[in-house]
């Protein structure tokens, strides 16, 4: 077989311009696809990270029906202390969970003493929230970023609200909330910081201390609207999602129906659809690559067979078995694919390395100076390389088959 490959290599070298052109096409296709995967992968990871690490967490646990009514922040769908304790127990008993943060969510009226508007609030445990959402502190664009996210009596407000209401860090504001029974309660807060808004659910929420939220709502027990969960390894999301669903299924309501539900970040964020579209585009780009390789390799192999008909006649006449003639031409396709793959992969890795060195930044919505950090997994490289090599061999199959079936007499007479 080594000799067949050696001869195939020489045949390719014989028509070096055509071989070079075909290899360049394969290389361009490889580089295009690998760069696309790396750049869009970076973009996806970055955007997903923005949601999971600064707003949603990887998973969230709610009382059943809460997410369906989440726009209303329904207080009657909070978890009671008992259910919340069961969730804590389940989360602590799941080794894949790194941290979790309980939240008490509410809608309130926000007043700067001259104007009033509505605000969505998260009552948080600052330490747990900071551990669960490590990028949340990074979204504080005005105000001190050190120390706890919020202390008692402090509020983090979204940037749009700060601008609209002309509120600055250190200003005193009033929050007025209506509790589950319909009674109204108010409390003053000092603006601790202004949060950069991001697109999507929770991206324009304010944050107060959990105890303040509970006090504002006059809740007799420690209710929780949701638990945000951070995983040790986000790649285990689907598995942990299933695991938690299974473990929390035993928490039931008075009628014996499951009381809780678990959602992944993708269930909660519209960006998941964008991520799916990017994946779809990647598939489309891969199909284009397959077409490029298929057409260029098939073209070069058809030409190779046509130009070497007499040679094929000769090797057939001297007794070369048809299967070996087939192998010879398949080996040429294989070598084209392998050469294109090696060069394409090396160039792609160099280009990705160069892009990382360039520290390119871009903006996405209100997110500024996001660093482009393309990465490519060895699995992706191996998959693309395998596709290119297999398609190169498949593209050579028809011309190789034709060569192996050629009548030696007809081939030897060919001019």
């Amino acid at each position: 077989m080594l000799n067949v490959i050696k001869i195939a290599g020489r045949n390719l070298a014989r028509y070096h311009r055509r071989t070079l052109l075909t290899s360049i096409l394969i290389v361009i296709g490889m580089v295009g696809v690998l760069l696309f995967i790396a750049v869009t992968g970076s973009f996806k990871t970055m955007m997903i990270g923005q949601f999971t690490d600064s707003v949603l967490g990887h998973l969230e646990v709610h009382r059943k029906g809460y997410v369906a009514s989440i726009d209303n922040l329904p207080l009657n769908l909070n978890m009671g202390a008992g259910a919340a304790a069961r969730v804590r127990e389940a989360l602590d008993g799941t080794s894949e969970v790194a941290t979790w943060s309980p939240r008490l969510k509410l809608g309130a009226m926000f007043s700067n003493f001259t104007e009033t508007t509505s605000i969505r609030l998260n009552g948080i445990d600052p330490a747990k929230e900071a551990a669960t959402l490590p990028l949340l502190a990074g979204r504080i664009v005005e105000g001190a970023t050190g120390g706890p996210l919020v202390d008692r009596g402090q509020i983090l407000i979204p940037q749009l609200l700060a601008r609209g209401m002309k509120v600055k860090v250190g200003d005193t504001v009033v929050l007025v909330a209506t509790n589950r029974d319909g009674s109204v309660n108010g409390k003053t807060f000092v603006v601790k910081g202004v949060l950069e808004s991001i697109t999507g659910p929770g991206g324009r929420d304010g944050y107060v201390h959990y105890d303040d939220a509970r006090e504002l709502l006059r809740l007799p027990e420690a209710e929780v609207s949701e638990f945000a969960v951070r995983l040790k390894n986000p790649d285990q999301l689907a598995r942990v999602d299933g695991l938690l669903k299974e473990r929390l299924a035993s928490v039931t309501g008075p009628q014996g129906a499951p009381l809780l539900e678990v959602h992944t970040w993708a269930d909660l964020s519209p960006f998941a659809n964008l991520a799916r579209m990017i994946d779809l585009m990647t598939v489309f780009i891969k199909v284009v690559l397959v077409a490029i390789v298929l057409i260029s390799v098939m073209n070069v192999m058809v030409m190779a067979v046509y130009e070497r008909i007499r040679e094929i006649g000769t090797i057939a006449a001297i007794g070369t078995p048809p299967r070996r003639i087939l192998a010879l031409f398949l080996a040429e396709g294989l070598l084209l694919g392998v050469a294109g793959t090696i060069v394409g992969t090396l160039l792609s890795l160099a280009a990705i390395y160069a892009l990382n060195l360039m520290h390119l930044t871009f903006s996405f919505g209100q997110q500024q100076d996001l660093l482009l950090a393309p990465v490519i997994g060895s699995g992706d490289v191996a998959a693309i390389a395998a596709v290119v090599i297999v398609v190169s061999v498949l593209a050579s199959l028809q011309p190789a088959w034709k060569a192996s079936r050629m009548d030696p007499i007809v081939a030897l007479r060919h001019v």
Partner: protein
Amino acid sequence: MSLVEATGLAKSYRVGSVEVPAIKGVDFAIEAGSFVSFVGPSGSGKSTLLNMIGCLDHPSSGTLKVLGTDIASLDRRGAARFRGEHIGFVFQDFNLIPVLTAYENIEYPLIMVQGWAPDKRRQRVLQLLDAVGMADQAGKRPDQLSGGQKQRIAVARALATNAQLVLADEPTANLDHETAYRIIDLMKKMRDGFGTSFVFSTHDPKIMAEAEVTFVLEDGRIREQAGEVAHA
């Protein structure tokens, strides 16, 4: 048993709806170790006959036995195997593989057809390069060789697999007279040295005279046979 035995051998081709006879029922025998030529004008059937002897084509009727094998019984793969094991070819246009050196062209059938071990292969190729006087040209590619040198390499390639029969279709047609005689002389020497039978076609009367047995073909029939049929 003769090396080649033809009885009532006929071959015709269909051109459109017309059946065109190329060989019209010939009988002949070629003995092992002989040096035979088929001569005749263009269209007399020389190449058709050589193609059938070389298992490249099947007879339309009659029987043709090569080394005792009825070639009509061979399918495509079987014919390829038979050629690879028993028959060597020398072509008018040399038909060397352009990307391979002289050495590698001779080595080619040993690798691709018979799968010899490297050491044995090397020994055989060097022996043949020496036998055809091309030992000093081993590393050259066909485009660096003269016509005569190419044909010497082609003869060596035909002998590489220890073929019992070498078929040469107009092997001297593209060579000048002096070189043509040298090639015929080389073929004779190879016959003597390796015991291989050579059957070649030519329309050159001077070259024809070099053969020990000559079959004169005319219009698909053997008009006459000259020379002694040598028995091995």
